[in-house]
């Protein structure tokens, strides 16, 4: 069968080719379709029965002449040849060279679909990665093996942010750094060039493998591209012991391709025309990030997606957020105010932060400072909202402090230079500078010891000083350990 070409296509619809009367075709097999001009297209069997075989053609079925279309079943699933030579190369979605150089030859080939990682083989990610970006390091820390997407919108600087992360990401006190797997789907030529030049100028190009499907390349190829790219990532991480940073952009283009095929197949839609299995399908991709016991390498994944109409409840960001370990959300409002990176803090989250920060990893106060900044900023946004209704002059004295805090937070903490690489200590010190704009009694998430050590509240009105003078002295001589861990030991 491998050598045989069939000419039994009965129908073609979108990316789907229907074949009749070919027995025993295995599901998932790779197919080569030759059209009347002798050009080859790649396909995959997505449904198979006694009677009908359904082939998904990555290059689409446009201008196929059914009478003069030949199909060859390769009797093997989609595989990717793997070798260390992949570094520095550029491929398309099915792993063919896109840089004019010869294909990778290797005896080692793997099915691009991978197989699910056994949960008991995973090891919990907990090593802090410093990206040099305060909103990430300070408030939504990334750890090695995490999948942390950037939720963006069209026209927002997600590519610049992703490139900055690639440039700056490092482990504290470690020299060896990341190799990058860059998977791009439906990106413009300009964006692709931007990344290439950025990798080149920062000298990492030799440590990057690129899988690129441009905006004018066949859209269906996007369905297989992230799988191909992650197969390479798994090889680099778990065979070659490298720490891989996988940047996958733009997942929205991926999901749109999936919807297109689902619709053509007549699958029951769940929300906004996307099939019910979008969640599981995305999970197959995202869950390939991680760490594995007894393996030295890791896959840290930073997927980028643009939220259609900036709507975070749209199925693509929504289902992504349900799978990934947090999200960094960009805001158009901050962007329009000129803030870079326009990370909007309240909806951003890193779920794996808790085990990668603190005393032994970053600094002892880090978890509490992060929590406090979140709480204070949430409160400050309420004050700002109130000010927009009743006017800033009408605000209470406390609320005016919050207003000033919100502004400073956005201008100094959130905003930073595209080349600015802040150390985690710089980020935390900056956080305390900002928290010092607020009176200590509003800072319930930090300990009294933290306040003593880092907080610098001097703006004390005479009246308040008077009031405090009495009460705080009274309580000062009572024993109440402010450090919860110390208290734990007492018990």
């Amino acid at each position: 069968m491998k050598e045989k070409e069939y000419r039994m296509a009965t129908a073609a619809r979108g990316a789907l080719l229907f074949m009749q009367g070919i027995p025993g075709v295995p599901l998932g097999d790779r197919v080569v379709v030759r059209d009347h001009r002798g050009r080859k297209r790649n396909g995959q069997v997505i449904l198979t029965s006694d009677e009908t075989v359904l082939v998904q053609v990555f290059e689409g079925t446009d201008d196929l002449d059914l009478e003069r279309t030949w199909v060859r079943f390769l009797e093997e699933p989609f595989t990717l040849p793997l070798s260390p030579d992949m570094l520095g190369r550029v491929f398309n979605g099915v792993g063919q060279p896109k840089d004019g150089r010869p294909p990778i030859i290797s005896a080692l080939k793997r099915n691009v679909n991978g197989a699910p990682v056994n949960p008991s083989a995973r090891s919990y990610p907990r090593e802090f990665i410093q990206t040099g970006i305060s909103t990430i390091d300070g408030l939504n820390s990334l750890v090695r093996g995490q999948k942390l997407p950037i939720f963006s919108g069209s026209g927002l600087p997600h590519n610049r942010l992703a490139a900055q992360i690639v440039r700056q990401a490092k482990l504290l006190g470690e020299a060896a750094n990341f190799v990058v797997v860059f998977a791009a789907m439906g990106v413009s030529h300009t964006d692709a060039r931007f990344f290439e030049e950025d990798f080149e100028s920062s000298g990492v190009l030799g440590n990057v493998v690129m899988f690129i499907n441009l905006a004018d390349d066949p859209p269906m190829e996007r369905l297989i591209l992230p799988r191909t790219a992650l197969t390479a990532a798994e090889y680099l991480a778990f065979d070659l012991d490298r720490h891989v940073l996988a940047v996958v952009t733009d997942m929205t283009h991926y999901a749109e391709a999936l919807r297109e095929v689902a619709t053509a197949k007549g699958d029951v839609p769940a929300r906004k025309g996307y099939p019910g299995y979008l969640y599981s399908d995305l999970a197959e991709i995202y869950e390939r990030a991680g760490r594995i016991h007894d393996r030295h390498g890791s896959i840290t994944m930073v997927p980028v997606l643009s939220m259609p109409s900036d709507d975070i409840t749209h199925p693509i960001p929504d289902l992504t957020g349900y799978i990934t370990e947090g999200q960094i959300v960009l805001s158009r409002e901050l962007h329009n105010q000129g803030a870079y990176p326009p990370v909007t803090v309240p909806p951003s989250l890193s779920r794996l932060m808790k085990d990668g920060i603190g005393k032994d990893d970053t600094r002892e106060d880090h978890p509490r400072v992060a929590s406090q900044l979140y709480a204070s900023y949430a409160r400050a946004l309420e004050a700002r909202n109130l000010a927009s209704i009743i006017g800033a002059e009408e605000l209470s004295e406390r609320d005016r402090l919050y207003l000033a805090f919100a502004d400073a937070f956005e201008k100094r903490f959130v905003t930073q230079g595209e080349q600015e690489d802040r150390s985690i200590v710089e980020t935390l010190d900056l956080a305390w500078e900002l928290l010092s704009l607020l009176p200590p009694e509003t800072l319930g998430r930090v300990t009294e010891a933290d306040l003593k050590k880092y907080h610098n509240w001097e703006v004390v009105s005479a009246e308040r000083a008077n009031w405090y003078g009495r009460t705080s002295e009274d309580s000062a001589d009572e024993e109440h350990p402010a450090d919860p861990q110390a208290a734990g030991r007492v018990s």
Partner: protein
Amino acid sequence: MGNIVQINGPIVTVRLQGVHNGEQVRVGRLGLVGEVISLDGNQAQVQVYESTESLSPGESAQALGHPLSVELGPGLLGQIFDGVQRPLKAIRLQSGDQIARGLELPALDREQVWQFEPASALDIGTHVGGGTIIGTVQETETVVHRILVPPAQSGELLEHAPAGDYTVDQVIARIRNSIGHVHKLKLFHRWPVRRPRPYRARDHAAVPLMTGQRILDTFFPLLKGGTGAVPGPFGAGKTIVQQQIARWANADIVLYVGCGERGNELVEVLESFPKLTDPHSGRSLMERTLLVANTSNMPVVAREASIYVGVTIAEYYRDQGYDVVMVADSTSRWAEALREVAGRLGQMPVEEGYPAYLASRLSAFYERAGSVQTLAGNRGSVSLIGAVSPPGGDFSEPVTSHTKEMVRTFWALTKELADARHYPAVGWNDSFSGYVETAAKWWAEHVDPAWAQRRAEALALLAEADELARIVNLVGPEALSPAQRWVLEGAGLLKEAVLQQSALDKVDSYASPRKQFILLDLALKIYHEGKDILELEVPVDHIAQLPLLAKMRRIKSVYSSDQTEELRKLDQEIHETFDRIRIEYAGVKEQTA
């Protein structure tokens, strides 16, 4: 023997004579297993638990003669199983980091030896019914595993093994049933997962399930044998709530079912539980815990099965007379698996693609919770707690709205609270518990008679503050009287000092019922005292800025559950502080008068 006709994702159509609905079928060269979900003439549709890639039409299909069943016996605790009860640690030894297909491994280790202690009261010749305890095995340091006569069997005891070491495969008793058949009993038996295990009678759940989480236990309590749901948008804290319950609940056995969620969350349980001690038994938490894991990237059909595998194991420990808690994260993913299969079968979708039987399947699942009198006459319970993941955080979607109608406790997580890092982000407006009255009796008896009243007072304060906050947002704070502004401050104090509870804080992660009550009582005391001195025209800001309040906000993480006397000392400080202000302001008033 039959053969494969069609393969459509996880649904395989086979030509196979005489199979039953629900029967297990093995297909193809790889020997993948699935179950029949519909029959049509001599064709059957089989949902397969593993990826069907590379399967082709014409390959063989073989009926296995039984429905999906689980093995029930010693050796379950501390394990991690996949959605059809395959032991993941053993699979790893066999197939490496990734799960290979077509592996057949028994759930229970066949090599492990258990020390069996026969039930001394059972003489040869006595009649033993289904569910009778014929002996025990020390399964872990804390849990005695009671070996039961399988529920469907009964008869005259012919042979009873003496105390000694046995593997699960060895015979430990023989019984002759009413028609003269002799059955061998082993340390384990099998039970079909889609059939609830029988019990003698249901009784009324009367004891709260204590989770150590204030917003749950004090505000929206659950009972042992009750049902609860944790709905919320992504990142709101459903998993943490369930992990906290799995950690701290005063249950004998905990089942953690990771159904279509992240692999790392299960690893976290696997890595952290052995190191944590159960506050009730003082032993490692892993000794009472077992995991069923079908992560989001594992095959979707096995995900559908995982919930039933979990609840059947839960019922089995219930039948031994234990209080069992099962948390399922997330029931939405289970419902989606159902939807996917229904879609592939071409069944008519009714709402958002879900089949018409979604509601009945959900309610049949939650019906398996309950506090019962077991066949052996003991008390046991299964509490079921399901996370719900509504698309876009919209609670009106089908899974959330049906679940809401079925469960008695509803812990609604809100995005606003989560965004402000108010954890647990359980909202007090949309959450409810149908068990408050029963719980109140327990609290009154075991902790404090004033519990119900304090709880009601706190909820009223929160509601009033929410109302006032709306007014402020319309017309500004100036419109509020000092008393109203103090309501806002009081509610703020309540939120920070009582409701917020960080799972990451070593001291506050767990709060005993007494600690919960004291914190609530202290916060309300401050509120009342403050309200009182407002009469003396003390400015609200002055009260709000008292160091006493800052101390109250932090005290939960200063003193642990076994330092309640220390907590109570704040009472004294409250009195002193407010008395001092009273004296001072009474003086001021006199001077100005």
